[in-house]
């Protein structure tokens, strides 16, 4: 897979930096909300195909999956994969009623998805001088996805790993942009680079 299919090296560098900055803002906001230091990885930028996205869902340990679509100059979907491990502790830190049943874990997953996706995207669109609206997140089961129904061939994946200090917890947030939105993104990056 050619990672540089739809954006060039300069654009990629710029996007990387924008993501770094978004992450910093997101981590700072998160730390304020849950009073736990957030450890962020450097965002990974790659191109994927429907098959590639499918393999992304394979996880050894129990995970929760949620997704959230966004609309605006660019549109796409944010998918978050959240480990079951650590959810209880995180729920406690976020003052969820204890003990947590399956329903409140679901609520936590949705809230985390909204916070993580919102924080990542907000930083990104603010820097790009773009605007977008996030729809409500929903839970989903990757096994039940018919990937043959995807109407795209290539998508840009922006993958961010979140971990927490002192709590064994991990989550991945992937921002997927389709071909049309990638073109819009490339244009915005060019404006910034000029």
């Amino acid at each position, binding site marked *: 897979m050619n990672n540089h299919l739809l954006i060039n090296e300069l654009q990629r560098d710029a996007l990387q930096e924008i993501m770094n900055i978004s992450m910093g803002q997101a981590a700072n*906001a998160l730390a*304020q*909300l849950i009073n736990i230091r957030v450890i962020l990885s450097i965002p990974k930028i790659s191109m994927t195909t429907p098959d590639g996205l499918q393999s992304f869902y394979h996880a050894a340990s129990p995970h929760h999956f949620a997704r959230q679509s966004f609309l605006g100059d660019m549109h796409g979907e944010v998918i978050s994969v959240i480990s079951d491990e650590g959810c209880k502790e995180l729920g406690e830190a976020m003052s969820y009623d204890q003990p947590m049943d399956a329903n409140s874990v679901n*609520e936590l997953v*949705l809230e985390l998805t*909204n*916070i993580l996706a*919102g924080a990542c995207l*907000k930083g990104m669109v603010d820097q790009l001088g773009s605007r977008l609206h996030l729809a*409500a997140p929903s839970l989903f089961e990757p096994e039940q996805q018919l990937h043959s129904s995807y109407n795209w061939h290539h998508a840009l994946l922006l993958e961010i790993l979140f971990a927490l200090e002192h709590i064994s917890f991990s989550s991945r947030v992937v921002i997927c942009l389709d071909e049309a939105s990638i073109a819009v993104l490339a244009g915005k990056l060019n404006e910034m680079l000029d």
Partner: protein
Amino acid sequence: MDRQQLFEDVVSQLAIGVCIVDSGYNLVYWNNFFADRLQMPMADVEGKSLLELFPDQATFLKRKLQSVFVLKNASFSYWEQRPVVFQFKSSRPITGEECQMYQNVEIYPIFNTDNAVDRVCITVYDMTVTASYHQQLTRLTQQLEAEKQQQQVLINKLEEAHNQLLQSEKMAAIGQLAAGVAHEINNPVGFIFSNLQSLQDYLSRMLKYVDLLSKIVDKVPQPTLHQLKADYVQRNQLAMVLADCPDLLNESLDGAERVMAIVKSLKEFSHVDSKEWSAADITSGIESTLRVINNELKYKAEVVRHYAADLPALYCQPMQLNQVFMNLLVNAAQAMDSFGRIEIDVAFDEQKMVVKIRDSGKGIAPEHMKRIFEPFFTTKPVGQGTGLGLSLSYTIIRRHKGSINVESTPGVGTCFIIELPRRSELEVQQDEASLAAASQHGVL
């Protein structure tokens, strides 16, 4: 009407709840949706803390509002996870069908001119109708799932029953074969036995005759004749032959008698399906059952009988009762971990006969006691027990208006107690007739 007035009017009448709070979570505005349902007009609540107005959800609201102020992004809540955020009066005030409103809530930031967020807007959507459809659907799905599982159980049972049927057909075929063989053997064995009896009679006469002749020869004063006899007796080992003959015949008679007994049992058991009512001796039924399953029992347990003297005949279905005895005896034998003891008590009083079959086997686990008479209940490995034996026994005893009970101590043994009322032929006929009438009317 100017634009602002227009928008205010529209928002106040929206069919969704709209509520605006400031960064201290104090109320700036709510529309009629809130005011009407809570019967708290805007003027009464302006400036009040939202968290104090809804103390039950204060923790939740605070967390959500905080995240919107900090992240400057919308936040959501769904009826699936949190059905009721705001405690409203019934959303169905007339029909009272739903006492709580299921809600989706969306909280989003309102940016001021400095691009900062000092207020957020809370919108509430009534999801009650969707939720009730959804719940109905979920219930229906669960019901279907449960029914599907029940059907699967039923299918398994049917399969078992089918296997049982095959097995019983096989048994019936073997039974018929046995009856045929028994019939064929019965005649020759009969004449072998009676011929042997005649032969025994003749032989004793011939032996006497030989004895007489021998004595006569001894009395004749002719040494050559004596020598000749002695030589003959010696050569043919006649002393041994003559002594052996009665033993041989006795043994043969004994053998023939045993063959006849087995043939008789086989003939009786080839009628095992017979539901004929007759006056019968219970103990002879038990004995013929014991003969048939002798092979199953002899290495497993010693059988001890306590039969009451002068036992009266019982008007019953003898072959059906034999089936019950066989089931209980075979179970008893299979319950033995090592060589044990099976005791059979038969007693009676004016009203009833009581048969107890007690074994020294491993006993029945307490959790299984209630279920042992259920059809298809078995603790034996798959394929070794149909789980029908005891339920069949139960049905047979009920048909005799009797009862079958069990007492068991794990590790000590089990005792089955069968009580059979002593009914006259007339009583039985009346009971059977009313049973037949009931089944025709579809009561059974």
